[in-house]
């Protein structure tokens, strides 16, 4: 029992990201409304961001900004004292790109609504078949 509890606690970040990813994927597949699909896509992106940020974490380490950075006299920089900056770099750009793709997705949705007057996928498919 305590082993299971330890497994749950020591890898809590992975369980949360798996849960978020499943919610996002479910929304993308099964929702009928295009805006809800976009929301699902954003939840999926959030799961990826959470995963990357959490694997950059280190116990007893601080944010990746070097203390006494420009005056290092007597202060050795050790890698265990600072969390991994690489996932933060990747996700920093990914967040802004997510906003940009969200903008393009919403633009497509606006255009589809102007053209067909609906955002329900069933109605759109039946209109396209006619």
């Amino acid at each position: 029992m305590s082993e299971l509890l330890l497994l749950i606690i020591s890898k809590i970040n992975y369980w949360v990201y798996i849960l978020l990813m499943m919610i996002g994927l479910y929304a993308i597949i099964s929702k009928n409304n295009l805006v809800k699909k976009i929301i699902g896509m954003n939840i999926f992106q959030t799961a990826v961001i959470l995963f990357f940020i959490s694997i950059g974490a280190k116990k007893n380490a601080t944010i990746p900004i070097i203390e006494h950075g420009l005056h290092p006299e007597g202060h050795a920089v050790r890698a265990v004292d600072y969390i991994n900056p690489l996932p933060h770099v990747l996700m920093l750009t990914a967040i802004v790109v997510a906003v940009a793709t969200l903008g393009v997705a919403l633009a497509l949705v606006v255009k589809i609504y102007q053209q067909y007057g609906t955002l329900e996928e069933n109605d759109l498919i039946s209109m396209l078949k006619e």
Partner: protein
Amino acid sequence: MKKLAIVIVLMFGGLLFYSALEFPPWGDPQAPASTHVSPRYIEQAVSETSVPNLVTAVLADYRGYDTMFETIVIFSAGVACLLLLRVYRREEMETRLYRHLPTGITLRVKGERKIPKDSQDFEQIDLTWVPYDLAVKTTCRMIVPFSMIFALYVIAHGHHSPGGGFQGGVILGASVILYAISHNLRLSLLRISERLAVLLCGLGVFIYAGTGLLCTLYGANYLDYSALSQLLGVDPVTARSHGILMVEIGVGISVMAVMVHLYYNLASAGRHDEGL
């Protein structure tokens, strides 16, 4: 369809769960992600670039190409939104609403008749009538300049504290959007016109790519900022930090302009006449 989706999602989740059992525990300093290239970044970045904020150093120097193409992705998103939504055919609206500011009376004007253009007493408002809200407008008018200054601080101080071009650009764009929401789209188009927004989108990418090109002109590799030491008159390590600042300014301008431009197009469905 729903049952099929649940089955697919559960299979997907099961695969992820199975692989996550092998992952290192949370916060493990010996995790594979933290053992290969990241210790080198942490230990060498300050002596190589003189930038204490490692995220900025890795973002704009070690991974400069990646960030440049991310900026181009954002620029393309702005252009795609323009091409998808923008409508240039101007349909003159049949009826327009004006508000007489001293009394608060709303006038409905039909057809060709017009309010004098330079009149200070009238303000055109959107067809979905909105009440004149003094509290919202005054509060936002007070917040906007400070958030803009904060955005400039985030861009300029990104070397020493959390911040940089992407974050500062988003804050700068958000403050312009706040102005557009609290007043209206017409007034914010007078401040930052569509032409200016598109021009700034391109200018940001141009600054980034131009900084890289400047390095090649001084005989180094593309985006190798140490070559700028001859131009700036500092040692090569400090020149790297100045090069990072130039690049971050380009990113900030581009991100801000794309955010504003996306808002203009999405809020008015590409007509740029009246927004939210």
